[in-house]
């Protein structure tokens, strides 16, 4: 696969994270190629979510390099990532529960004049025009994830699966190049799961790259072009979903072998 995608949009090299004496991620490297859907799987406690937090900048690396579009980002704060092209969802979705669905999406729009204090008293027209454009885009994205009938409702009314769809739509407001999805299938009912899989495919076809953590192996098999297996903070195996599923090391890691 690496030969057919010579263009890593996100690349982690030899990344390590220690929490006191615990090494959660230990010299992990991975490259996400532009346009692919890459799966990151592994048993519980393998360090997948910590790896996500490192890539997203919400946890600082102990050592190692993270490059986004070739630019080193390991030292830059989390709130810069989205403007640099990287968005992430959370294992347990984090909608702004008291805000409406449309407002949830509007928050994610980047470079809004009206988010700075003074222009709100000086540049009314420009802000109003930007708001109209952003609202149109938000409505379109709510359509995309089949939530437009709830556009004016607070996000607290959504079910778990709908919250995942809302998070996805919210990220798309920011036009990211890479999206990190943390367990998109967890706790989602089967019919909504089909919608989520279908929407991820559609968004990927539109040019967005995905890296996803997932335990639902059926979903991984159906979605991911390539899979990386993590165990005990390091990379254990790599290949297609079918290949890694046959790998004896992977089977042992999942069954809790002597490691």
């Amino acid at each position, binding site marked *: 696969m690496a030969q057919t995608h010579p263009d890593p949009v996100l690349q982690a090299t030899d990344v390590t994270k220690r929490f006191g004496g615990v090494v959660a991620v230990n010299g992990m490297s991975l490259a996400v190629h532009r346009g692919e859907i890459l799966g990151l799987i592994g048993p519980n406690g393998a360090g997948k979510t910590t790896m996500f937090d490192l890539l*997203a900048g*919400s946890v600082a690396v102990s050592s190692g390099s993270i490059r986004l579009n070739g630019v080193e980002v390991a030292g830059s*704060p*989390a*709130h*810069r*990532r*989205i*403007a640099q092209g990287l*968005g*992430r969802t*959370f294992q347990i979705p*984090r*909608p*702004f*529960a*008291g*805000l409406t669905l449309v*407002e949830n999406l*509007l*928050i*994610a729009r*980047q470079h*809004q*004049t*009206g*988010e*700075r*204090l003074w222009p*709100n*008293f000086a540049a009314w027209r420009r*802000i109003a025009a930007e*708001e109209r454009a952003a609202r149109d885009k938000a409505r379109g994205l709510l359509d995309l994830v089949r939530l437009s009938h709830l556009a004016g409702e607070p996000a*607290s009314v959504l079910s778990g699966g709908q919250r995942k769809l809302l998070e996805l739509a*919210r*990220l798309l407001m*920011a036009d990211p190049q890479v999206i990190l999805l943390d367990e998109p299938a967890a706790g989602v009912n089967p019919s909504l799961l089909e919608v989520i899989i279908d929407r991820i495919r559609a968004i990927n076809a539109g040019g967005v790259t995905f890296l996803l953590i997932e335990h639902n192996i059926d979903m991984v098999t159906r979605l991911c072009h390539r899979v990386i297996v993590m165990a005990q903070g390091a990379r254990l195996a790599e290949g297609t979903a079918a290949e890694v599923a046959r790998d004896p090391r992977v089977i042992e890691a999942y069954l809790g072998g002597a490691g």
Partner: protein
Amino acid sequence: MIDLLGYAAFFLSTALIFAIITLGLNLQWGQTGLFNVGVAGFVAIGAYTSALLTTPETAGRLGGFGLPILAGWVAAMAVTALVAGITGYVTLRLKADYLAISTFGVAVVTQLVALNARGLTGGPFGVAFIPRPFGALADRPALFNFTSCGVVLAVTVLTYLALEHLTRSPWGRVLRALREDERAAVSLGKSARSYRIQAFAVGGAVMGLAGAVQAHLIGFIAPDNYVPTLTFQVWAMLMAGGSGSNRGAVAGALVVWAVWVGAGALSAALVPQAFQARAAALQIVVIGVMLCVILLWRPQGFFGPRRRRTPGGG
């Protein structure tokens, strides 16, 4: 009759000044979730800033620069915004009760400085001869009270409109997003640090403005105006009116101030002379009981949006 109306105007002026302070707190707590228990300190800084700049020259104290009242008010907002912004910056890592304790400390320090830095603040004797808007009318008390009330009303309306505009703006939306879920907002590109400092500064500026307006309404300020009771009153006003709503902040201020004044008048009328000083504490009790009743009967306050929240959700 005209005296009674004059008193009503004075009552309304005082209540509206509380409304302005409460509007400032609503931006910090109601919108952003910042647990600021140092309200009295920021009000004091605004009051003293404007007083020092606008009073005539006084022996033994800095200032008395004799500047116009409006200049004093603008400076009060600027200085309080700066101090509040710095407070926000140094408390960036603190949440909920820890933030509350720190801001409370800022207010206590401010009050102690006002009490002891005689060369700057006049110490326990305070600052007198603060020019009053339309002070030329002072020998006709009723008319003077009406014009003062008009000035305070105008400031309240302007503050309300400005804050309402900000609340509905994309800027205000980011504050609410940070209140709802800071981590998610950061992942969407919002700098929690920057907005937190801004909310502190803007809310502080509003409180400082209220302090300045009050100083010029009375014409005299002293350190014991800015004790924690003031902070308690303002919090009670925001809780009663409905945290998160600017309308609620104003309504809460009017109602709680009416109850406060009413309880004071009642205890003055009913309690024997010898116990009057102690009976004054009953005012706080009455407000506390009222707050309990409101929280049981209508936890979101008069105008607050319906949602479950407790201090500590920071």
